[in-house]
């Protein structure tokens, strides 16, 4: 019973009309028709998967919030770019990925990294630039990488990783491996040259790569609509590469999961790339330096009313999942974040000797004899 209900309300949520403030940037879920030829198997979005998605949502939220708090305490150094408000994209995609699938992220990559199973301590440690960090402080928050978890890097030059994801997908195609490369990027990224080259390349070579545009309405401080020739910066360009136009509600973890799943199935079946535009919103400023004063009054609050976590929580409750199960996830998440924080605070800074390690494959940096 529960299962059927759950599957029903996915459709409902995808059809739910958006509130007035969003009317102008209307989230048109035109991708649905296209999802039909590859329907979800009934067992995909079952209770266990849903609880997993909820856990991802909550853990990402808590960890990002903690990163923000630590920044206020002066413990996160350098810059950092949070995904508060955008958790459903990370959760939905990671939830649909299989072990061996590869993620390519941007500087706004904590969420995607966590979602693939990288421990919070590793992520927070890197943000705090400690020796226990994912890259021992050498990369910093913008370059989170965990090859063991399929997180093939976070890239801080806009657009650079789209072609790189193509390359990983080419390897899968060449070797007959079944993994999919998933590449996350923002709305602003659609206006840079590498976006265009990667999309065309991926289609011509029919690569198993999925391009995911998280449209949070802004580049750094400039509204995307002011610098883009079309309304939907990614989806309205899909036809330029012979791809289908897909825009989904990026605050709805189920909608994201389903779109991801369909795209992955297509990729694994040799059907080539997909481009998915997820409408979402970031609650904080672009980076830790940004108070986000450029946002019109009320915009944040309106989006918060469609908070991905609250939205998903209500849905699970309505679907008959007990409050206790959700509470357990929430408490567990808090414990994890606290434990990770303490571990990071106790961790030493990176030792001086790693300054010059791993420039080359021999482990060192010698450019001369």
């Amino acid at each position: 019973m529960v299962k059927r209900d759950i599957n029903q309300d996915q459709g409902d949520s995808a059809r739910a009309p958006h509130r007035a403030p969003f009317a102008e940037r209307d989230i048109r879920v035109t991708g649905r028709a296209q999802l039909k030829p590859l329907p979800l198997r009934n067992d995909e979005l079952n209770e266990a998967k849903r609880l997993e998605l909820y856990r991802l949502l909550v853990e990402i939220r808590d960890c990002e919030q903690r990163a923000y708090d630590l920044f206020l305490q002066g413990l996160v150094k350098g810059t950092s770019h949070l995904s508060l408000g955008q958790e459903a994209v990370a959760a939905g995609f990671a939830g649909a990925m299989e072990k061996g699938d590869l993620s390519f992220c941007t500087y706004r990559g904590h969420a995607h990294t966590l979602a693939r199973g990288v421990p919070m301590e590793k992520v927070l440690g890197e943000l705090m630039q400690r020796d226990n960090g994912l890259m021992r402080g050498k990369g910093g928050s913008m370059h989170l990488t965990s090859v063991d978890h399929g997180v093939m890097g976070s890239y801080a030059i806009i657009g650079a990783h789209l072609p790189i994801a193509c390359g990983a997908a080419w390897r899968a195609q060449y070797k007959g491996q079944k993994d999919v490369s998933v590449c996350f990027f923002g709305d602003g990224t659609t206006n840079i040259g590498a976006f265009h080259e990667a999309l065309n390349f991926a289609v011509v070579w029919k690569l198993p790569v999925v391009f995911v545009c998280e449209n949070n309405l802004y580049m750094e401080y400039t509204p995307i609509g002011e610098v883009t020739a079309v309304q939907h910066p990614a989806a309205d360009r899909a036809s330029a590469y012979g791809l289908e136009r897909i825009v989904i509600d990026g605050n709805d973890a189920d909608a994201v999961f389903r779109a991801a799943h369909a795209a992955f199935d297509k990729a694994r079946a040799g059907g080539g790339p997909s481009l998915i535009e997820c409408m979402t919103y970031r609650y904080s400023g672009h980076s830790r330096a940004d108070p986000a004063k450029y946002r019109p009054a009320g915009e944040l609050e309106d989006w918060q009313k469609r908070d991905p976590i609250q939205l998903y929580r209500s849905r699970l409750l309505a679907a008959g999942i007990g409050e206790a199960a959700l509470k357990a996830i929430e408490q567990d998440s808090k414990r994890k974040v606290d434990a990770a924080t303490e571990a990071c605070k106790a961790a030493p800074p990176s030792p001086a000797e790693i300054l010059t390690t791993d420039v080359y494959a021999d482990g060192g940096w010698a450019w001369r004899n």
Partner: protein
Amino acid sequence: MAELTYRDAVARGIAQEMSRDPDVVFLGEDVAKAGGVFKATVGLLEQFGPQRVRDTPISEQAILGAAMGAAMTGLKPIAEIMFSDFLAVCFDYIANEIPKSRYMSNGQVKCPLVIRTGNGAGSRFGAQHSQSVENWAMMIPGLKVVAPSTPRDVIGLMAAAVRDPDPVIFFEHKSLYAAKGDVPDGEIVDHLGTAKIVRPGKDATVLALALMVPRALAAAETLAKEHAIDVEVIDVRSLVPLDLATILGSVARTHRLFTVEENPRLCGWGAELASIAADEAFYDLDGPVVRITTPHIPLPAADNLEDLALPNALRIVDKIRRSLNA
């Protein structure tokens, strides 16, 4: 005379030139409404309006290409490339288009523009947002290249760059944006191609640029106080044109040369200056020409590691002391 930050000097320098010449226009990402991600261009939109101060998409090739096309046909654009690391995504314009069009056209095409960009380390941003890349520009024939170290020089060299008929790459050091300095009232116009002896000395010549200038000066004080070594510090300021009269003149007096640069080791501007000295000032030199550089590694994000990578006063003192006593 007023105290001004390096950051505010950028806006003042641009405003000075935009007020003077209606053909000066300014474009870049988040530069107008938001006043720039480093807040270095706050107020320009309000003062000069949306036709002259324009936000662009994240399209660095379009930014530099548009600046070039506008410069060729009568405007004097100032283009911002937010971080100098991003010169790599529009490097064709830096290397192949902007600097070569005059020559290839046998003088028909002009390209009077300024590309200003946030350069250098110190912000713990990691390997793709911290590089010091003056050498990327210096190595390209046809460009002019400046890198101011003080608020006053920011204004004066910006004015000189905007008024110059050739393309100028203007490196602002991110770690200097908050630095303060006295700036005279009224118009300031400096000269490209002039180095400044910022501390006279007799025992060795130390060449530095941008953030390395205050560090070289601090090192000089320590060397003087603690080691009785009196070095001359020169703020090179302009890599192209290069003021070799001042630089080689100093070496002729001090007989030793040190360069202090943030470029990673290989093919930095220090290599160029050191090798010029090794040729033209060989018989003036009493000892090795020593380059003090960032090691040849990508930059780490962690603060303690980043601090270790860049030349600092301690390392400069150490290197110079050992070399002079050797």
